């Protein structure tokens, strides 16, 4: 079974600063995806960034980037130039990909990020 661990229940950062959210996972699979989802108070989960396990290059989406360390099974999210709108619960998630079909997404327990003005 896959597990995803987020060891930081809460974090805060000053506006315009940089913050890193940590995530580790455990799996015996070799082919999988990793994701960071954001859940603002509106409840709707929104994809922030995704990484295919076979790609060594770290994914980047504007101010969001990841540090993917496959051997260490680590997948941290870096948010640069933090904005007030980044305040949300952030979930790390893992999905196996077997035979061309995605399987269930396994989520971590989440990190509540607060951006301070």
């Amino acid at each position: 079974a896959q597990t995803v661990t987020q060891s930081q229940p809460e974090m805060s950062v000053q506006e315009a600063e940089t913050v890193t959210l940590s995530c580790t996972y455990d799996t015996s699979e070799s082919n999988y995806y990793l994701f960071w989802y954001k859940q603002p108070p509106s409840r709707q989960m929104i994809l922030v960034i995704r990484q295919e396990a076979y790609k060594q290059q770290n994914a980047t989406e504007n101010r969001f980037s990841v540090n993917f360390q496959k051997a260490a099974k680590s997948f941290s999210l870096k948010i640069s130039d933090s904005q007030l709108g980044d305040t949300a619960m952030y979930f790390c998630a893992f999905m196996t990909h077997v035979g061309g079909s995605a399987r269930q997404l396994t989520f971590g327990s989440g990190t509540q990020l607060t951006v301070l003005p």
Partner: protein
Amino acid sequence: GAGVSQSPSNKVTEKGKDVELRCDPISGHTALYWYRQRLGQGLEFLIYFQGNSAPDKSGLPSDRFSAERTGESVSTLTIQRTQQEDSAVYLCASSLNRGSLNTGELFFGEGSRLTVL
């Protein structure tokens, strides 16, 4: 529709009653997922549909929970004889899950908040 739609948005029911929660996925998305999110916690996988069949229903917590999907579209999650511990937000997500078109990304609805008194 443009996004995943869930109804009702909020449901308050008495212990012992049955409830039905509905999910309309994004048109053309073959995969559909149900998750449960208790207050302040992460997402707990319930069931996954590929088309109208459910290859993975391992997350359903008891036989009081059931789900079906018809026409590779709408899905209904039914909870019979509700208990107070069933109180949570029930999130539905859909995904385009066809071979090379599969990105693994899930698109979430805003959830149905269930309160069992």
